[in-house]
């Protein structure tokens, strides 16, 4: 398990820079929004929490196709499946590695990008909290999508199609926390829901992912 985590992190750091790229994508999407929507700062500050959450979600999504596909192509997954490690654990570790290389940097960078979009001052704390709570769920759900589509060549887009509707509850509650935070409203309820989703997903999803992966390896 530790070996797998270490290896995945090493690969992310080395191979084409999996580490910084999610971040860079997040940055670029956030920067492109004003170009698309127009530069009115009052408008931007209203949509800022939502756009930041969306940007983080898309950045997460885009890096998902590295999660399993590479290991599939070069046969690593075949070998892992015949190894003593239970597949559920292996997938959870892979999701963890994905979160560390993608989700965590996003959480840390979000406040900076908030400045670009005129996020109200009261919103920063809640934005970070909601992202920190929500992004692990994104990684775990994403692993499920990756496991479903791992046999499909360049399944990237198909995976997005499968994963995005699954992201809806996380996005709604996450963005709601950030939005309420930014406008100074109470955030307990959506925060609790968000935490509940994340916990539930971490506890149950790896079994679904492992089942899907086993079918694909067959």
């Amino acid at each position, binding site marked *: 398990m530790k070996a797998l985590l270490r290896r995945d992190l090493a690969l992310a750091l080395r191979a084409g820079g999996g580490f910084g790229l999610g971040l860079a994508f997040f940055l670029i999407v956030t920067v492109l929004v004003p170009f698309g929507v127009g530069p009115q700062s009052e408008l931007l500050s209203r949509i800022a929490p939502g756009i930041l959450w969306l940007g983080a979600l898309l950045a997460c999504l885009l890096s998902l196709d590295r999660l399993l596909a590479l290991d599939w192509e070069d046969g690593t997954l075949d070998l892992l499946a015949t190894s003593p490690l239970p597949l559920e654990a292996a997938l959870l570790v892979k999701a963890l590695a994905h979160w560390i290389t993608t989700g965590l940097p996003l959480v840390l960078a979000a406040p900076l990008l908030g400045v670009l979009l005129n996020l109200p001052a009261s919103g920063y704390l809640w934005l970070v909290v909601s992202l920190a709570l929500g992004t692990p769920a994104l990684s775990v759900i994403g692993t499920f999508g990756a496991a479903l589509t791992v046999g499909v060549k360049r*399944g990237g887009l198909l995976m997005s199609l499968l994963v995005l*509707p699954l992201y809806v509850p996380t996005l709604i509650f996450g963005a709601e926390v950030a939005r309420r935070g930014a406008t100074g409203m109470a955030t307990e309820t959506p925060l609790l829901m968000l935490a509940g989703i994340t916990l539930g997903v971490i506890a149950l999803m790896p079994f*679904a992912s492992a089942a899907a992966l086993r*079918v694909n390896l067959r």
Partner: protein
Amino acid sequence: MSVTDQKPIPKRPSSFWSYANPVKFLAFSERVMPALWWLAGICLLVGLVWGFFFTPDDFRQGSTVKIIYLHVPSALMAINAWFMMLVASLIWIIRRHHVSALAAKAAAPVGVVMTVIALVTGAIWGQPMWGTWWAWDPRLTSFLILFLFYLGYIALWEAIEDPDTAADLTSVLCLVGSVFAVLSRYAVNFWNQGLHQGASLSLDKEENVADVFYFPLLVAIAGFVLLFLVLVLYRTGTEIRLRRTRALMAREART
């Protein structure tokens, strides 16, 4: 030579599960489908003609109330089609009957069309009633999400070559998707209290749905249910034939 007269068909299959045999299923569906086609057509015709021509206008909604005969049955079927797929997926996972996996596959496109009809008629209805084609009302929104689940489900079937693998994976997706669909429903409710509730409840409560609207609606719903049934039976038959063609071709290639 069609599949149906390949093997002698027992007169009365011993249990429900024996219909899970593709050959028996084909024989059975060939027998009941003509009647079902007629029934579905008649119910639809009666329900819609009754509703369209022989019901009065609603005092508040005017003639737009006639849209209800399309909107509500299609919305109902859109949800029930997914539910049927869920059950069929479970049967496939637990008992591995090919027919049930193929039935789930066959139902999905029918479900999407029902969803689209509900969305389109709803949108057209919304224009005069709410002054907008679309609003982010929880019910409408969760329908849109259902539509996305259908799309993903169909795309996954299409993308995977091996039929058994595809059946397994789509079943897993259907299970997980159902959980998330319910979750989204609550999330969406929390996120926005919308228009639809008020507008529909006034008709939904017994006292508000006058019998004049209620009975033709029931007939129309029966028509949609029957149409769904016959379409799924027919499409399942098609899937079985395609699968058989594929199996024969695979063997042909190796001689």
